[in-house]
């Protein structure tokens, strides 16, 4: 993806990341945060959560992966995410992005969101600054 190929308002291809228990377990081990609230629905409910929750930083990583697929070779200079509501492990989510600004020096700004496909709630929203090739 080159800067001249991008237009304000362009939408990134939607993605439905793997949020299965198996993948979340692999993630929490890599992140050294292997707590039952992320990997055990019963234990999470005992903590007052609606079920095992997807770690916010895993969602952030999934958004980064979406951007990297959209613009191979790009560099994400910053990624700022707000975790609004819990996303439940095993419940499908959709990642979205839209180009909201294009700088003269080859940097684009992108809005990113993760939305629960069952409740319609926005779990994560934020922005990224990305240098294109």
């Amino acid at each position, binding site marked *: 993806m080159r800067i001249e190929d991008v237009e304000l308002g362009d939408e990134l291809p939607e993605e439905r990341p793997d949020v299965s228990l198996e993948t979340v377990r692999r*993630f929490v081990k890599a992140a050294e*945060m292997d707590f039952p609230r992320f990997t055990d629905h019963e234990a999470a409910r005992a903590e007052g959560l609606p079920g095992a929750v997807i770690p*916010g*930083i895993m969602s952030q*990583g999934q958004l*980064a*992966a979406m951007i*990297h697929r959209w613009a*191979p070779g790009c560099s*994400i200079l910053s990624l700022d995410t707000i975790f609004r509501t819990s996303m439940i492990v095993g419940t499908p989510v959709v990642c979205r992005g839209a180009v909201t600004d294009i700088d003269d020096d080859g940097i684009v700004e992108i809005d990113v969101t993760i939305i629960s496909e069952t409740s319609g709630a926005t779990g994560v929203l934020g922005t990224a600054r990305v240098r294109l090739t």
Partner: protein
Amino acid sequence: MANVDIATIRDEWVGRVFQELDLVVDRERMLDWAISCGETDPRFVDPDHPDFQASTAFPTHINVARMLPDDFPQIGTGGIDGGKSIEWQRPMRAGDRLHAEVQIADIYAKTGRSGTMVFIVNRMTFTDADGAPVATVDWRMIRQG
């Protein structure tokens, strides 16, 4: 959690570095992180790639091990993750020896669907062996009232 208390705590604590640590960036952990987040770009999932590097959000987890200074006042309960931001200065690579400083960048109160919340912004700044900046992570930790 009266506002006046939050203001006082903010004045006292914001800007104070309360922890430093040294770390070596682990190749396997980088790889597992990237794969489980769904990365497919070989720069993040192929350790033999000449530009192999940590995926964007990788340094955010390093905050998880440390929360607040030992003598920080008790504000609310719990420790929900309200958000993370990362700003990169250069890629983080396997085997990099990094130094990190942690400070409280902001404290403020607000209300939301889950009630009264105090946000404590915990900032971790990573530098390399030469002291050059690598990345900065802000963690917005929520304590509930």
